């Protein structure tokens, strides 16, 4: 906290950061001021009037907290009869035409209107005239479904399309009780961040067609995760749940605020990438086309490794630093080469200047720092020499231009250690299932040299093993990536000062980034 100011809230002295508005400043101190339209990413609009607070001896005495900066000696009153009346009246006003269809609303359980009603109002409706009916279940495009009746007209969505994506597809049309959010006729939402509107909407007016009716919000376990969709490493919440008699599956990703990496939002592509965590997963261990037990599969791989003269290990640029390190160690053990060839992950022109990066791998910096060769020539050379190939979840077929590699590969004894059923692993003689990034923990370094730690979110009924564990079963000495950290730290000079348990939640910018300094 930089500069601070002291002010009084309900005659209690509170010290808060200077230069912020009252909502943000007091939220840090644990004091919540109800609000609909204000969002730190979108700025104060002041249209919902829900955040009105009383300033003692102030002119005017009642001000919107979102537009009032915290100032020294300010006397804020939140619990006076007038403020309570204001809040109650505002809620009554918002609820006049609200359909109160919470039972069928996906927002129920994480709805600000619901929470505020329970906290500040609890009044019966006094409406004795028919409610204004508006349109429901409008498809706004990009998987956003709009319900005009539930809308409180805070305008967050409109401001998002104008300020953040600068596409401006949404607007508020009409006035008074006929006012509603709408798209321009025939011009639905069309941007790569549209689903953030669902997160932004304080009520159930904007819902996601993907998540629609899938699960109630209160059943979901919200774990923190880091998106592995591109080199940005956006922070997100992994909302998952285990139904009775079912398996633990992910229902959605939501943006998690991290001002150092992604700000308040994530892209739609990353948001939808949770499907890949649930679907197309490799669950069987396969040896020579037949499904066998996991232990037998490991036995087969160990046998192959013992017979191989020159094995080649291919690491994925999505693996954590610890996993890459574990593969390096086991390659040394068996006298093999290591390649991190993954040009296919880079899709030219797919990025933008906001959150989407054209490199679709999460930890390429890790490969670089560990000095794992990524060039095609090295791969082709080592592949030619090798008599056994172990692929640790590296998807060659991410793009189409590696048919040559695939052909060369098909001539070798090929072991795929993979989390998903992909064409890249189809020719393998042995397939070992492993955990995907929602099922293990570790650290990754994004393109901007921010090291981020993430922990395990999903616990499957039959949890697949992590690459570190696989290398241990193959004879490696590393039991846990955190125990191996001293070795990693010695190898990578950039990480010399980094202790995994001390990496803050928002990640840590690695300093003196320069040439990789490898001694091992």
């Amino acid at each position, binding site marked *: 906290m930089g500069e601070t100011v002291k002010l009084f809230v309900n005659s209690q002295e509170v010290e808060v950061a200077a230069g912020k508005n009252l909502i943000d400043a007091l939220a840090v101190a644990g004091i919540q001021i109800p609000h609909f339209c204000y969002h730190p990413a979108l700025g104060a609009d002041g249209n919902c009037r829900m955040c009105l607070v009383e300033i003692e001896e102030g002119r005017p005495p009642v001000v919107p907290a979102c537009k009032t900066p915290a100032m020294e000696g300010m006397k804020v009153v939140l619990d006076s009869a007038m403020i309570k009346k204001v809040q109650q009246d505002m809620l009554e006003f918002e609820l006049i035409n609200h359909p109160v*269809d919470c039972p*069928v609303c996906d927002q129920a359980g994480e709805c600000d209107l619901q929470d505020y009603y329970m906290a500040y109002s609890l009044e019966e409706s006094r409406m004795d005239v028919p409610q204004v009916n508006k349109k429901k279940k409008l498809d706004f495009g990009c998987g956003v479904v709009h319900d005009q009746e539930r809308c409180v007209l805070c305008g967050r969505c409109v401001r998002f399309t104008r300020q953040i994506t600068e596409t401006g597809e949404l607007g508020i049309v009409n006035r008074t009780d006929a006012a509603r959010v709408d798209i321009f006729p025939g011009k639905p939402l069309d941007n790569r961040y549209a689903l953030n509107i669902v997160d932004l909407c304080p009520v159930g007016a904007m819902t996601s067609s993907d998540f*629609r009716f*899938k699960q109630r919000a209160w*059943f979901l376990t919200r774990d923190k995760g880091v998106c592995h969709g591109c080199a940005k490493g956006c922070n997100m919440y992994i909302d998952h749940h285990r*139904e009775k008699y079912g398996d633990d599956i992910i229902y959605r990703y939501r943006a998690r605020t991290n001002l150092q990496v992604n700000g308040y939002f994530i892209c739609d592509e990353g948001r939808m990438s949770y499907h890949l965590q649930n679907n197309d997963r490799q669950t069987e261990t396969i040896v020579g086309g037949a499904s066998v037990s996991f232990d037998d599969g490991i036995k087969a791989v160990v046998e192959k490794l013992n017979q191989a003269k020159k094995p080649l290990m291919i690491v994925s640029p999505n693996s954590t630093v610890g996993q890459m390190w574990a593969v390096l160690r086991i390659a040394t053990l068996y006298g093999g080469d290591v390649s991190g060839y993954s040009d296919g992950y880079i899709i030219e022109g797919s990025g933008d200047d906001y959150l989407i990066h054209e490199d679709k791998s999460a930890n390429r910096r890790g490969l670089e720092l560990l000095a794992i060769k990524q060039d095609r020539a090295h791969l082709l050379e080592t592949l030619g020499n090798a008599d056994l190939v172990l692929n640790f979840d590296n998807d060659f077929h991410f793009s189409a231009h590696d048919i040559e590699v695939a052909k060369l590969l098909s001539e070798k004894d090929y072991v795929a250690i993979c989390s998903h059923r992909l064409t890249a692993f189809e020719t393998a003689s042995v397939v070992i299932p492993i955990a995907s990034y929602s099922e293990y923990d570790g650290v990754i370094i994004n393109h901007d040299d921010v090291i981020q730690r993430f922990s395990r979110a999903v616990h499957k009924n039959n949890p697949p093993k992590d690459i570190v564990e696989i290398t241990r079963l193959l004879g490696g000495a590393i039991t846990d990536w955190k125990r191996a950290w001293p070795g990693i730290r010695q190898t990578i000079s950039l990480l010399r000062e980094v202790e995994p348990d001390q990496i803050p939640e928002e990640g840590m910018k690695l300093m003196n980034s320069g040439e990789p300094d490898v001694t091992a």
Partner: protein
Amino acid sequence: MGAKIKVVERKGKTFFEQLYLIEIFKGMAVTVGHFFRNLRDNSNLYVRHYPEVKPEITPRWRGRHRLTLHEDGSIKCVACFMCQTNCPSECIMIEAGEREDGVSEKMPVKFEIDLLECIYCGYCVEACPMDAIRMDSGVFSVTSSNRENMMIGIAELIEPPGAFNEDEYQKGVG
């Protein structure tokens, strides 16, 4: 301190009571009285001859669940998951889906109750905002010869009618 103190007489302290035997014989006299009364005439037993004589069920009896219907025959349930949320034995499993009949937006695609897990507490009925689930089917004997049949779905749940008329039920519940 307005607590009322009631002194309870402690029995079993006198000499004859300490002998036990006398008290035991008194107790045995009571039980043998019952024995001979029933032996002489077994028509006064305090038992119901169950499978033939069915017990009378009040509207408040919590029997097997049923899902109620609107008058047009559409299901009242909107798959809000309130019953599933409140179920202490987690025996209700709902899958929601899009509803096209215009009654609401949402309806259950799958509504399963595992009767082996159900403890018949009636919390689902209390939680339901639509009066869509009730336990007034009057079915109190839920039996089956295999586990699979104890998992009942929508078809079985909407099948039984209410065992009581609406007024009686409302009186009983309210």
